[in-house]
């Protein structure tokens, strides 16, 4: 039997028994010339391996894994509203709103708009501006200024909505459908609110992800 067959066999047996074998340690045990072959077979194993039924000790050890705990915390932080994340990241960078605004307008070459940019940033921090309207370019620029990973500034994770929610007519369905149609008709007939064309700064803050 070859070294690869023996090491792989031991790894798989340990995996199935829930003994949490370490890939790196097994690769180090393989002769240098056979490491790539063992790595390829371990990779193939991980794609078909059953998830072990860990005992209580192993489960407790996994729960205490620093990488898992850190990722869970980071994921929870990213799920918090941007109005919470932005000031946290800004304070970590030691920047005031005005500093961020100055660097932002400098990136986009719109230095005259520094004060308005600061106003928009304050609106985000006060949760007065819909994060879904922020452009991807703006988030990239903020990530650059704040030294953050772009994912930390993403406008928010998708909302949980029933994936298979089907319409079921209740007793008063006709009444509320009529009310909705009435409201939509009135909205369609109403004059368009007056507003000037968007400039570059408006597009960054209000134009949506593609602006």
């Amino acid at each position, binding site marked *: 039997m070859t070294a690869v067959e023996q090491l792989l066999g031991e790894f798989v047996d340990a995996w199935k028994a829930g003994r949490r074998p370490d890939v790196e340690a097994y690769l180090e045990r393989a002769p240098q010339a056979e490491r790539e072959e063992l790595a390829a*077979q371990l990779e193939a194993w991980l794609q078909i391996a059953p998830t072990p039924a860990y005992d209580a000790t192993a489960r407790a050890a996994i729960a205490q894994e620093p990488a898992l705990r850190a990722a869970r915390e980071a994921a929870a932080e990213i799920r918090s509203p941007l109005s919470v994340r932005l000031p946290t990241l800004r304070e970590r960078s030691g920047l005031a709103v005005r500093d961020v605004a100055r660097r932002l307008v400098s990136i986009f070459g719109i230095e005259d708009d520094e004060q308005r940019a600061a106003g928009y940033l304050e609106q985000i921090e006060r949760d007065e501006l819909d994060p879904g309207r922020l452009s991807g370019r703006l988030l990239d620029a903020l990530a650059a200024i704040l030294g953050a990973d772009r994912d930390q500034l993403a406008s928010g994770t998708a909302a949980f909505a029933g994936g298979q929610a089907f319409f079921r007519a209740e007793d008063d369905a006709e009444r509320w459908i009529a009310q909705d149609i009435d409201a939509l008709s009135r909205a369609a007939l109403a004059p368009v609110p007056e507003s000037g064309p968007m400039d570059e700064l408006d597009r960054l803050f209000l134009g949506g992800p593609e602006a």
Partner: protein
Amino acid sequence: MGRHHEEKLRRFLAARDKGDEAGARRWWDELISDNFDRVRAMVYLQSRGHLSFDEREDALQRALVKLFNNMIHTFRGTSVGEWVESTRTLVKFACIDTQRRAMTISKHERSLDHQARDDDAGRWDADVFAAIEKQRREQESDENDADALGEQQAFLDWAVPQLSEKRRRVIELDRADVPVEEIQKRLGVSRDVVYASRSRALKDLARLREAYDS
């Protein structure tokens, strides 16, 4: 892949379909914890030779955070096998993303004795912004590729029937979580034969995977 894990996935899917966020997150969290070793090992194997120790830890974080926050919404399968397949794709792109980010940072890193002045900061911001923009476009393209991969027929349904009889039987018993002693008994062979058949089957699967992905 284990009946209890299929059950956890089933409960997750039911909760997500109902819009029960707390329930869905609870089962999803359990699936990630149960598969933590798998994810870590996948990151290690995917990144060896390409990423430093710190970058590998970063890739693991990136993969886990995306599992917690993104794949919980985007996963479209119904079996743990499909979950593992999606995770494999996610890990691959987390490693690529980490490598790109490491290159971006090293290109634009300021020296430790750098005295920040406003005009310098502006130039540096613009450079990093351009790099992040480029990275985002590449990442979006990767995610489209990942979606396309997820729509393909499950690899194993295609590959396992192509294995020779003995190798296929060993792999099927392995997938069913049967201990090696039981495999020996059922097939009437020694442990060495099980180990050799398993190794050759996985070698075949690795080769078939390359053909399947290309």
